[in-house]
């Protein structure tokens, strides 16, 4: 299990904070764990509320993750 990794896509202002539009990170079992790790790894994230999408749906509570999950970090939307 420890060989598993997660790939996350990073959008908008978050790509400036993480320095990339996509990062490979250690595996976490759910989005709560993932969020906790991200806030530790990138303290600047604390200033910007963000959503985590799993398989193109916004994770409302904690969503279980697997290695094939399509994960994306979404800053506040500002279309239109």
């Amino acid at each position, binding site marked *: 299990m420890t060989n598993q990794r997660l790939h996350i*896509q990073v*959008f*908008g*202002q978050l790509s400036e904070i993480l320095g990339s539009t996509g990062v490979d990170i250690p595996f976490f079992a759910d989005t709560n764990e993932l969020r906790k790790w991200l806030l530790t790894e990138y303290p600047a994230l604390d200033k910007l509320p963000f959503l985590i*999408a799993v398989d*193109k*749906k916004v994770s409302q509570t904690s969503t279980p993750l697997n290695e094939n999950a399509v994960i*994306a970090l*979404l*800053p*506040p*939307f*500002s*279309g*239109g």
Partner: protein
Amino acid sequence: MEAKKIKNIFVQGAISPAFIADSIAGHQSKTTIGGHSIFLGQVRADMINGQKVVGIEYTSYVEMALDKMQEIREDIFAKYELSCAHVYHSLGMVLTGEICLFVFTSAPHRRSAIDACNELVERIKAELPVWGKELLEGEGHQWKVNN
């Protein structure tokens, strides 16, 4: 009624008045339509800390946005008696004064067209994963915030 096929809503750069005219003209053969409602978003030359916005660069999580837009369309068609509904959103650079969002609803009676257009605009702004980066005169940028 609408097919389930996912429609693209994104266009590169600004939406031109000629494109809007063509969309309107394309509905003149639908003689059950009594009213059209249109919303156009236009890029404002806001001042941000003394620097003028010269344009907005739009990006999106396209696959997710199109799924979400399809969900919104289905909700809207279930809720209102509509003849049709069209949404176009810019990606990439849109200069100040140019149009970045075009929402177009048509119905036999005006109330449905107007209410559906209004609800589409609100949901597009709140629910579509799209981001605007406001580019400032000289240099620098600020990320747009919706309200």
